């Protein structure tokens, strides 16, 4: 008998069984989502050729020249029926082949996704984790000091920031820090004067360019965290076992840990899901700061009617959310003993 709550053999088996179930369900979900998104994408009015044609005409090309250029560009367009295209697409997927991008001719969809993903993952991940940490800590304070001025102030700041739309926040911060007090660059990922690579100038420029998107993202999601954490802590504070621990003369630091650990538990679900959603990119923020992440790429692929790229982006988002769900569930079996024993309680 040990005092340490290791999951043990039965725990490991339970986790493995859960994982297998999740993976099976996940595969079915991916199949359904890809089918639905295939149908939706192919039924959007307009097609890639029309979109490109319009774009070229807008750029000043004569209609005949534009038509010709488009014909050359899209000579490889599939001509089979919808059903044949669907089968082709699924066969490709089975070989993990997402097809060719139409808006970036000659490039595989997975390559385009990869290059956009790196511009989303790092800033949005940094923004999410930053706001999570700050929100959690301030949420605890807001809950403990909820009868004082500080608590009110924190809660109000949370509600305000939670209510302001991301794009308003982005425009506001952009206006302040690039125009009023021009200390930060307005867009892009790095100054072109620096050689991309592992050198101080380039990295400094990267950080400088990422600051506004990261801060905007963090501020936009901070309100949600502080409000969620506050209400969670208030709930736990009212729990009987906290009073019981007090009446047993437990040290404040230990009681604080009891509160924090119990209160943070429900927030892990939200964190895992928002990490999954992160692959959708921060569309407004990336557009406003012209940051070439997944959100911006998704918009471009939609305007360009890039079927393959759209399909790839949706697939990526789906897979990410499914994986995040599985991760959240498995995380609970580790951190919450009530989930671990799953109804086999004595």
């Amino acid at each position, binding site marked *: *008998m*040990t*005092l*340490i*709550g290791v999951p043990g053999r039965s725990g490991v088996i339970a986790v493995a069984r859960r994982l297998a179930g999740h993976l099976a369900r996940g595969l079915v979900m991916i199949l359904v989502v890809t089918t639905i998104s295939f149908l939706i994408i192919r039924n959007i009015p307009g097609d890639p050729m029309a979109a490109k044609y319009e774009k070229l005409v807008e750029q000043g090309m004569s209609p005949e020249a534009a038509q010709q250029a488009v014909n050359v560009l899209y000579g490889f367009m599939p001509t089979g029926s919808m059903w044949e295209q669907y089968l082709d697409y699924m066969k490709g997927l089975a070989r993990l082949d997402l097809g060719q991008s139409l808006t970036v001719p000659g490039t595989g969809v997975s390559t385009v996704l990869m290059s956009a993903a790196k511009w989303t993952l790092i800033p949005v991940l940094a923004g999410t984790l930053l706001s999570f940490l700050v929100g959690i800590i301030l949420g605890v304070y807001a809950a403990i000091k909820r009868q004082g001025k500080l608590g009110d102030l924190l809660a109000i700041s949370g509600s305000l920031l939670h209510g302001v739309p991301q794009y308003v926040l982005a425009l506001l911060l952009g206006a302040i820090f690039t125009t009023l007090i021009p200390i930060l660059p307005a867009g892009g990922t790095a100054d072109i004067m620096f050689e991309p690579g592992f050198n101080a100038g380039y990295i400094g420029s990267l950080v400088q360019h990422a600051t506004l998107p990261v801060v905007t993202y963090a501020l936009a999601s901070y309100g949600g965290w502080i409000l969620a954490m506050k209400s969670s802590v208030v709930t736990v504070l009212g*729990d*009987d*076992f906290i*009073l*019981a*621990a*007090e*009446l*047993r*003369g*437990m*040290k404040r630091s*230990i009681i604080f840990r*009891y509160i924090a*650990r*119990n209160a943070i*538990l429900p927030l892990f679900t939200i964190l895992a899901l928002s990490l999954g959603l992160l692959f959708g990119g921060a569309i407004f923020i990336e557009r406003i700061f012209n940051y070439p992440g997944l959100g911006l790429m998704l918009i471009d692929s939609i305007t360009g009617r890039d079927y393959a790229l759209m399909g790839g982006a949706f697939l990526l988002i789906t897979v990410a959310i499914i994986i995040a769900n599985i991760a959240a569930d498995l995380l609970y079996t580790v*951190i*919450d*003993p*009530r989930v671990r*024993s799953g109804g086999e*309680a*004595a």
Partner: protein
Amino acid sequence: MSVTSDKRAPGVRISDLSVVYRTPAGELPAVRGIDLELVPGTITGVVGESGSGKSTLALSLLNAVQPPGRISAGSVEIDGLGDVVALGGDDLRRARGRHVGYVFQAAQSSLNPLKTVGKQLLDLGRSHDVEDLPGLVKEARSLLDRMGMDGARVLDSHQHELSGGMRQRVGIMLALVLNAHLVVLDEPTTALDMITQATILRIIREVHEERGLTTLVITHDLGVVAEVADRLAVMYGGRVVEQGPTREVLGDPRHPYTRGLLQAIPRLVGDIDEARALPGRPPTLGTIPADGCVFRERCAVRMDVCETGEPPVLTQGPRIVACHAADMGPEAVTEPAKERQTVTAGVGDTPTTGEEQA
């Protein structure tokens, strides 16, 4: 009255204790001018309806009345600890758990759901600077074994893996493991089935005798008091209306409220209609009358004086009754009703209690 003569069992003297709760309507008294003595080595039962102030009284013993409530007057003297009302900060924290063990209502979950019982036991030990943690674990295990459980397994379990009766025994273990000799049990058998209730009561009785404790049991169930308590105090509307040795109070109740409570219990033999519920409802915090007797609205022997006069505290031997209508016989000592309108924190007017008379 069976008194376990153990020197370690502390006596407790509650004098003129008042607790008020801050409400939008001002500070309202939940407990008013209570005098009660816990004789070392005895089990005292406090009975009363919901809202009678009995849980507030129990929390006062640890100076743990939760905001917006506060102890506004009086003292709680515990042998070896002094007046806990005057304690604060780390001294108070150390007294909780080590000197006074508190056992929660069984229906409540008094354990951290995320940690095993054993880990919480270690947290408790660390909080009280116990150096010999393995010794503490051993003590806990033997206490649990003593209460008819597999101690080692229980220490390795989380709360959700334990039944209600098991949780209650864990609660009792945690109250005793630091060697507290004053134990407060708040509704120890509420929400437990009959068999488990009987087991818990037997355990309370046995552990009380074995370890030489002074025990206070708070309950709404007269049956529980009859089973375990040596002495009994009946609370109504924040006051103790009658107290004395359990057998005497239950056998020959003097206060109309105590009589009403006993009449409301259905008997095993005889007509079910013989059990009569008390008319009316108990007062809430806002409706407790400020003057006169708190029970008069529901009283069968109500007189004019009950409206205005504080009931006199009548003492006869070990028994105390606060009622205008009570007849305590020729040798009763009548103490004039105390001035309770001005609530002062004086300890000077220590009342005459039954034990001192006996």
